[in-house]
């Protein structure tokens, strides 16, 4: 089957092809998504794990002062969500509970989990626990922007946005 392409038909096809090219070019609109970086500026003993923002998640652990790589996130508003582990608080608690041999409170205080202590040994927990937190402030990004969001001690709260099962099993 031959399809003859005269001048008029050729211009029509060129117009159509041009429209498709333009549409295809705009099809990469996700390339204009904003780029976001999250930085841990809490304290030297606090680790931040798996920060996320508006659909982006970085599967990483950030030490104090460290930052994620730029991620392309959806434009819009969201808190920065993350998990935190406070090593200082953990060590203080273990010292107080006497769970690690040789590690005791510096002031020589009573080890609460001792046999004559007042704390039920069942309440002692040696497993480091990561808690879900989010920034108190809401961050905003728009198409084409590059933003660095910092996590600070004075800008964090517990994150209770745990999704529940919705549709299918």
């Amino acid at each position, binding site marked *: *089957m031959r*399809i003859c392409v005269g001048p008029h038909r050729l211009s029509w096809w060129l117009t*159509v092809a041009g*429209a*498709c090219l333009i*549409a*295809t070019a*705009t*099809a*990469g*609109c*996700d390339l204009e998504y904003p780029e976001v970086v999250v930085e841990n500026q809490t304290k030297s003993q606090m680790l931040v794990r798996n920060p*996320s923002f*508006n*659909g*982006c*998640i970085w599967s990483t652990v950030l030490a104090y002062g460290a930052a994620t790589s730029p*991620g392309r*996130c*959806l*434009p*819009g508003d*969201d*808190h920065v*969500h993350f998990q935190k582990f406070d090593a200082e608080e953990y060590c203080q608690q273990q010292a107080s509970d006497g769970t690690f041999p040789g590690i005791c409170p510096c002031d020589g205080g009573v080890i609460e989990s001792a046999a004559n202590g007042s704390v039920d040994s069942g309440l002692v927990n040696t497993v480091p626990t990561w808690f879900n937190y*989010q920034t108190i402030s809401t961050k905003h990004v728009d198409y084409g922007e590059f933003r660095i969001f910092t996590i600070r001690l004075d800008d964090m709260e517990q*994150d209770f*946005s*745990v*999704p*529940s*099962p*919705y*549709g*299918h*099993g």
Partner: protein
Amino acid sequence: MAPLPARAQELPVDGGGGTDAGTTADAGADTVSDSLSVGIDAGGLVDADISPPAGPSPYDVVVVGRRPTKKDRTEDTTRVDGQRLRDNARASTFEDLAQEDGDVYVSSRGAGIHGIGNMATGGIRIRGLGGSPNSQILVVEDDAPDYQGIFGHPIPDAYVPALIDEVLVIKGGDSTLYGTNAMGGVVVIRNRWRGEDGYELLSDAALGSYQTTRASVSALGRIGNWDMEAALSDLTTDGQRPGAGGSDTVATTALRYRLTPTLRISVRNKVTHVDGNDPGPVTTPTPDHWFDAWRDNASAQLVYTQDAIRLTITPYLNTGIHRLYDGFYSHDYVAGSTAELDLRLHSQANLLFGLASEGVAGTVVNRITEDHPDVRDHIDGSLYSQLTLRPIARTDLVLGARELYSSRYGSVPLYKAGARVDLGWGFSLHSRVSQNFRQPTMSELYLPYPVANPDLKPEYALNSDLGATFVSEHLEISGTGYRTEARNLIKYFGQWPAAEVINIDHVVIWGVEGRVAAKGLGPLSVMVAGDRQTVGRYTKQNPDGKVDFIVEAVRNIGAHSLAGTLTGEWVHGLYMADYGRQPMADVFVMDLALRDRYTSVERRLTVEPYLLLRNFLDRRYAYVQNYLMPGFNVLAGLKVGI
């Protein structure tokens, strides 16, 4: 009586071949040798009896028609033409259906993949019923029910429009004719066959935002007594955010042989593979929550027609293998058979008898924890009948009953009654009441997701409606008031480890839906459909109101048909939990489709470049909380047909 054509030609009796752009008109005809009866109801045109002239005619008239998909003329239905679905700008077939109807709601989460697993979308709600997952809505494809054996719901990604001839949405359900899961509604899909000798090929290739590629190839053929069809569709996308991508491949083949003019046999098989990821809410993304599912739907059909008798026997087998990121691995099987005998007792009476049986089985294992929940098979058998009476002209009365016996629940009696009156001058009234049911799924009975209860009983619904329709050449107006009463609803309460699932309480939903369509206003056609309902306390993904509109402009310039279609949807009163908790913002989105269909009759060729501009207002919205839908995105494609 309609005039006969001036020369010999084929008369398509109903809207086949893509010429009818998705109206509510439910048209169909029985192909008979001597006379032709055309019945179009619930929003259609006119009732007419067309008979050939008594004397000899110098012309041969060949009437080509199809058996109506709709078996009960008193049902409130919406018929959507397959061509309409192929032209629609929405990202999936179920979303296309929701676009046509105010009382049909379909959730979505992205650029075409609904997915499988905990946060999958694509669930359908019709007049407040649907369930989560949507096991209260039954999908029937070519007379074979289609639902997943373990979780009891259809897989939305398995339905692609490449071969679809028409879809009939039966609102209010019909368990008398269709059995379990037809509780809130039935989506009846009929795929097409070629109506004349020869072949046709259609290819559709598109490229779009988020690295989306969509391609399909379909072929239909008719040679002698053989009919053949095959189609392959593939959609692959990265999605609008990390983890939202996936792929969906559907391959369909079918073969039909006409043994005699009155006896034909067909076989059909559809294989679906969908894989992707649940991206999680934007607040807590989960880019590694993958899913992978294979499904096969096989069926055969024997059809015998002779004078006033039509016998249809349809055995079917649906199987699936599902894998999830958390180790879930399942095999499921739904096998059954239906035999229907349709008798035309009299010009004023039709009697339909049916015999059906179905078995559901499956196995589930967690490959990580090596748990093997005990899942027990289930079978049932049914005897059903439907009597259609036409005591006076233009009046249909329908009575139906079904006695189902289940290996788990024993006897399940079902019934329905309906009436339809054509008042003349385009006006008609219809009313129906139907007792429907849904059996508990294997997941609800045996699987700890989050908890199971093997003592669950079936859900029941008593659905009733009353509606009126006016149809003229350019205007179609319909309105229906409905009442949905469901009891023994299966609900989950609490969270693991304190969760429980029980049959509890009941709900009454009152609603009103309407549709106005103006056609042929010069180059313009406009349709607006809306629904308003009071859903009671079960508000989770059950909106209070919805409005859909379609504005289409078509201009023919020589061999070119230029069309622009503007569609929009507004959803109000969405909640992410029951009891009015977790309200969500209203959804409002508009899409634009542009196409230029070039047809060369001499070369038997159609070429159609098209451009879909979705959410061109770049609105931020979500059907599921924190599952943001894509912003402005495009899909550009080219269809070629020979």
